[in-house]
């Protein structure tokens, strides 16, 4: 019982937004509690059995009153919905220029890899005042990456990429919880976010054994696992070239279009038959089971890096 708090620390930009709505909701609740509990209390005292209160001409209903107390809460609800929805939309949209961090959840730990290649487990070191974007996936069951101090939470679903972003505003250490029940040691799937001053963060990146960047690892895999054998200009197989592909629309064999986002790239590696690019044959083998989630993320980071030279955050070793 060392630190007693009624509210969690407010350590990100969205924390403020969420708290504003939260406090407004508390005020609205207090309002409704007042308009319900005070009359109940008053009536209970005044009209208790045997009291001398005037009970003549009681009202047994009034459509005007009913319409009133139906409409008012409805309007209030719609306003609250709008407020919550606007904030939610901001929380759910991926930021374009952010520090990318890859997170893989598994029973029962968080495996984190920074763009620079540095890996950590159950810890996330990040600089203050920078937008951080997490790409999350799970190796087994559904987890949920929850940082109360940032007021953000996102389920981490096997088989797909979800994303979560935040912009920390205060250096310090905060809890990471897994909030989606994931099995026996669910309660132990916890960690900490360490928000650091930019200089401290830069120093931290240099500590420990030096690793290659995520893009570099991906590039190595691209050649080692034979991807380059087909996906290169001078290959004897007819396979799509990946340069400049990321975030571009791709026409598919069945006439539809998809955007080449992370999920598309992932599916193309693991379930190549699902979406065949127009003009190509269904010849690519599935790499399902042959790559770890981390390796897939590295490969995608590489494909992204050759797809978006203009982005300053990507591909910097």
């Amino acid at each position, binding site marked *: *019982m060392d630190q*007693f*708090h009624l*509210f969690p620390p407010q350590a990100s930009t*969205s924390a403020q937004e*969420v708290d504003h*709505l*939260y406090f407004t*909701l508390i005020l*609205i*609740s207090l309002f409704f*509690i007042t308009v*319900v*509990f005070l009359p109940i209390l008053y*009536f*209970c005292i005044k*009209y*208790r*059995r045997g009291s001398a*209160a005037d*009970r003549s001409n009681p*009202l*047994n*209903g*009034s459509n005007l*009153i*009913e319409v009133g*107390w139906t409409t008012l809460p*409805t309007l209030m*609800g*719609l306003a609250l*919905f709008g407020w*919550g*929805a606007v904030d*939610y939309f901001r*929380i759910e*949209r991926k930021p374009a220029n952010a520090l990318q961090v890859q997170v893989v959840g598994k*029973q029962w730990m968080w495996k984190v890899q920074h763009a620079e290649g540095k890996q950590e487990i159950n810890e996330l070191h990040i600089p203050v005042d920078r937008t951080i974007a997490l790409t999350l996936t799970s190796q*087994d*069951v*559904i987890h*949920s990456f929850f940082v*109360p*101090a940032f*007021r953000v939470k996102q*389920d981490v*679903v*096997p*088989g797909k990429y*979800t994303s979560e972003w935040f912009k920390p505003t205060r250096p310090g250490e905060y*809890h990471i919880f*897994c*909030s*989606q*029940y994931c099995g*026996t040691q*669910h*309660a*132990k799937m916890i960690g900490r976010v360490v928000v650091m001053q930019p200089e401290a963060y830069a120093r931290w990146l240099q500590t420990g054994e030096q690793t290659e960047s995520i893009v570099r690892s991906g590039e190595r895999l691209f050649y080692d696992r034979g991807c380059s054998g087909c996906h290169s200009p001078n290959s004897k197989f007819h396979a799509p070239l990946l340069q400049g592909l990321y975030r571009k629309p791709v026409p598919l064999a069945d006439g539809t279009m998809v955007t080449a986002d992370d999920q598309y790239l992932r599916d193309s590696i693991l*379930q190549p038959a699902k979406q065949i690019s127009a003009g190509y044959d269904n010849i690519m083998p599935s790499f399902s089971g042959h790559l770890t989630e981390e390796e897939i993320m590295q490969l995608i980071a590489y494909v992204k890096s050759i797809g978006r030279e203009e982005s300053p955050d990507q591909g910097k070793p």
Partner: protein
Amino acid sequence: MNARVATEIDIRTEGEFARESYLSEHTVRSWLLTTDHKRIGILYLFTILIFFAIASVAAAMMRIELLHPTGGLMTSETYNKLFTIHGTLMVWFFLIPSIPAVLGNFVLPMMIGARDVAFPKLNLTSWYLFVFGGAFATWSLIRGGVDTGWTFYTPYSTTYANSHVISMAAGVFIAGFSTIITGMNFIVTTHKMRAPGLTWFRLPLFVWSLYATSLIMVLATPVLAMTLGLISLERIWGVGIFDPNLGGDPILFQHMFWFYSHPAVYIMILPGMGVVSELIPCFSRKPIFGYPWVGCASMAIAILGFLVWGHHMFVSSQSVYAGMIFSVLSFLVAVPSGVKVFNWTATLHKGSIHFTTPMLYALGFIGLFVIGGLTGLFLAALSVDVHVHDTYFIIAHFHYIMVGGMVTGFMGGLHYWWPKITGRLYPEIWGKLAALTTFLGFNLTFFPLFILGYLGQPRRYHVYPPEFQIFHVLSTAGASILGVGYVMPLIYFIWSAKHGRAAGPNPWRATGLEWQTSSPPPKHNFKETPVVTGKPYDYSAEKDVDLDLANL
């Protein structure tokens, strides 16, 4: 309700009551083969109490474990099994059958002046299915328990869980059919068997709420059955419809599960609202304010309740736009609940309020339900839900609705109809004491959890950061008081069933048809089918009656 009953029932002697009462036969056979809705209600009462007891013990053990941040009393596996037992048994084997199958079965046919439900044999079948399902659930506990949580989320439940998921799912599956049969029976009974003159807008509001509940039971439960069936087959064969490695989709499970389970929480509150709508007018000696609005609000809740399930999935990777649709509908479903609360409050105005035990429970219901309902708005608001989803805030919210609402409503209803069920009065002073204890204990147990949830404490954690401890300690303290509040009625009810004062046909001087027959009622409820000529809750003739409860 103004009902003329041809036979003078009040002049019969005690002995005559006993002879023709539905309780007069005593053989085991007469109970196990009964098709009398009143006896089936009592069979249900005993059965759900057993499950309530098991699930409560699980809750108590969890609360003790949570006294200390590092636990230490049990392994994480045991804890996970305990919250699964608590959740599954409380939801499917206590809350869902509580008011509908016990009180509903007992009073619904009497309230509409019928001799029985439309399908008495099916009614008995539903109880046997319930027991059979309960046996499966218990069997999975004896063999070592289930650790998936009551939500059975995939792919944990289908691929990774190392426990007896299938027998538990089978138990819930079977119990689901008992729910469907009950719902079907109530709908047909309400449509086809009302006494002459008893039009829809003369029905007691409890009947309205049971009708709305039955609608949910009938339309939602089959989807749960199919979902659980798919989970079980998935566990056996691993075809992969919920397994992303095989092309399946775990989110599809969540849609199917919540399509049932969100409406199901209205199964767990609507009947409670119905009971309160009976109690408030009776003990204010005044017709309910805005009768048609309260009745239609039940239907609105039942229908809108089907359109909001996605608010359990705001952070599940569901589409943002779908999230918005579900959010706005969730705000709308709060409105009819609010309308009910306002009407109950307005009913008190210029009433003559008797603070009997049922009335204390009814007032407690309003208080706790208002808090539970308002915190529901926090969860409907998208951005706030992202933060509080899967934390203790949710735990606190739904316990305010389900325990503060439904269990309080159940206790209120049980006290109210106890004289009708047994023909005896319970000791009023003890009743009031228990009601107050429950109310205080409940708030102490669950209010701190709102704060704890906003601080970020995730649910289903048996160990937690030390700064959360104070709230857990408060909660455990409250739970022990709450426990006392539930044990007291158990004792005095049992005592009063034998030694309580004879109640007479209508101790509350209430207007419902169920009070127009003797207590306990005769086998076929009424000597002669009553004819209804007026509006419900017409207390004008009995406005100044003094129920003289101090002597009871």
